[in-house]
């Protein structure tokens, strides 16, 4: 007869599994939760070279939002982000739709569109820096073809430098969007296409009014992926423009690094990275609520 004291302690059930999950638990708690909380906490201090627990309220944030460099970074992120999103989705979808047309050499085309994704942002940034070089790159070539007054000098023009970064980013990232869209297109029941053909609906209308609405989930997933990588843009800017000319192509991620590790101003770095977190939360939380909140209902 078993007495109560002999029942095994639930803590020891699945002990091996629990031990094996220690890395995940540690990471989740210490790094993700703990690290984030720590940074947010210290953003309210005036840490300089080393973290110092001296609270100064919202001082760091006030300074942040009155620094031109930060304001330029935010503005750049906006422009870059929105354009990147729109163009990635449009170009990616168009490429996918074209590849879906049962064409020859589909594999070859897909390999060509996707290979930039395998490269580092540093590589991408440097090669486009060279291509956009005013003396040797695109501008020079077009001029030497006869259009003497052609000007395309993003790397030295404050107004359009962010577009130079955009071109490089699209070159690297649209391949991924294309792959996701293609997978979505391929999952559409072929009978829908047949029905539309019998109904006499032209191809472009079929895409616009039937197929794309059916791919809502794919678009949302892709959007989330693009958005989360937009906020992190750093390597590309460092390589292609180093934030220049001047501060014209600064981005928040670079602001964080420069102040945290080069400018000996940890407090500013913490405040800036907390702002970055906030911007992600603003995008992710509504999406998560829509996706998962609805399911539970």
């Amino acid at each position, binding site marked *: 007869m078993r007495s109560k004291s002999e029942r095994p302690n639930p803590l020891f059930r699945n002990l091996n599994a629990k031990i094996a*999950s220690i890395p995940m638990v540690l990471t989740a708690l210490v790094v993700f939760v703990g*690290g984030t909380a*720590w940074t947010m906490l210290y953003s309210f201090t005036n840490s300089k070279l080393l973290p110092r627990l001296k609270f100064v309220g919202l001082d760091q944030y006030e300074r942040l939002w009155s620094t031109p460099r930060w304001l330029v970074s935010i503005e750049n992120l906006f422009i870059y982000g929105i354009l990147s999103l729109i163009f990635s989705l449009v170009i990616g979808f168009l490429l996918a739709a074209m590849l879906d047309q049962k064409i020859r050499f589909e594999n070859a085309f897909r390999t060509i569109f996707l290979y930039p994704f395998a490269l580092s942002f540093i590589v991408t940034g440097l090669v486009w820096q060279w291509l956009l070089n005013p003396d040797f790159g695109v501008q020079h070539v077009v001029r030497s073809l006869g259009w003497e007054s052609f000007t395309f000098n993003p790397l030295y023009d404050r107004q359009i430098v962010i577009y130079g970064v955009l071109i490089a980013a699209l070159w690297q990232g649209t391949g991924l969007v294309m792959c996701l869209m293609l997978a979505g297109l391929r999952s559409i029941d072929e009978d829908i296409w047949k029905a539309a053909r019998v109904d006499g609906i032209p191809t472009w209308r079929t895409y616009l009014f039937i197929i794309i609405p059916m791919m809502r989930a794919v678009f949302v997933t892709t959007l989330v992926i693009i958005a989360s990588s937009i906020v992190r843009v750093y390597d590309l800017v460092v390589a292609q423009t180093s934030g220049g000319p001047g501060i014209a192509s600064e981005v*928040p991620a670079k602001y964080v690094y420069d102040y945290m590790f080069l400018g000996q101003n940890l407090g500013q770095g913490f405040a800036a990275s907390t702002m970055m977190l906030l911007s992600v939360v603003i995008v992710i939380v509504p999406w998560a609520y829509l996706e998962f909140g609805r399911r539970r209902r």
Partner: protein
Amino acid sequence: MMDDQIKAVAGAPISDPGGPRGPKPRRALSRRNIILYGTLFVAAVYYLLPLYVMVVTSLKGMPEIRLGHIFAPPMEITFEPWVKAWGKACTGLNCDGLSRGFWNSVRITIPSVLLSIAVASVNGYALANWRFKGAEIFFTILIVGAFIPYQVMLYPIVIILREIGIYGTLTGLVLVHCIFGMPILTLLFRNYFASLPDELFRAARVDGAGFWGIYLRIMLPMSLPIFVVAVIIQTTGIWNDFLFGVVYTRPDTYPMTVQLNNIVNAVQGVKEYNVNMAATLITGLVPLIVYFVSGKLFVRGIAAGAVKG
């Protein structure tokens, strides 16, 4: 004569005995095809151009580059830029080329890939087959954590690494890569193991096998494809990383990407564009080779990694 022809095709309602027959005539050069293949071709040029320019520039001598024909193939091929990029290019501090960064990257990538995959696969297996209280919560935190911008966690990790004493070493960077690789890899493995038939697992438990026994003898042998996908994702991601490389290393432990940036951007004076391009190409070569060799598996890796929940 016509009547005979008509009667021969029995029972046919005749509107036009010589009318359309067989496959619809399709001109290979139809408007649709021209637009389709034309656009794809133009797009392909846009995507291939930078690679072409990289290769071509890296094989020219500086005098030829100064002539300014960036798209023209080299009149005289020279491998000198490559040699220089590898062994003699100067970063701010020393002049022994990219080779140092290359070996650093190798020493960072291989352990990181092995360790992160080992940990994440066991984690994914535990989550999929041995659900225990609280597991889902930690996993959710992990996944949510994947969306947090790395910048927020940079400094706390610096402190942690300093305390352990590995800040600035290759080991420290390996640990960082493991930590940040965990969310996506654990998700990948968890989904994969969850998709394997339950009966295998239950039969093994009935046979008396334990946690590690089932993992090593049953799960692992069946998981080759997903391991390959994980290796592809991690190798590409870690080799291409820059942020962690620049934060958590010292000049003698810089990975290739950091060194590359220093060689090209941090150098004053005369820019040697051909050496720069050679260096860029060398850095991009490893992930490119992984890409071309892995083919369809690379695409599967993206799809798997991109599907978050």
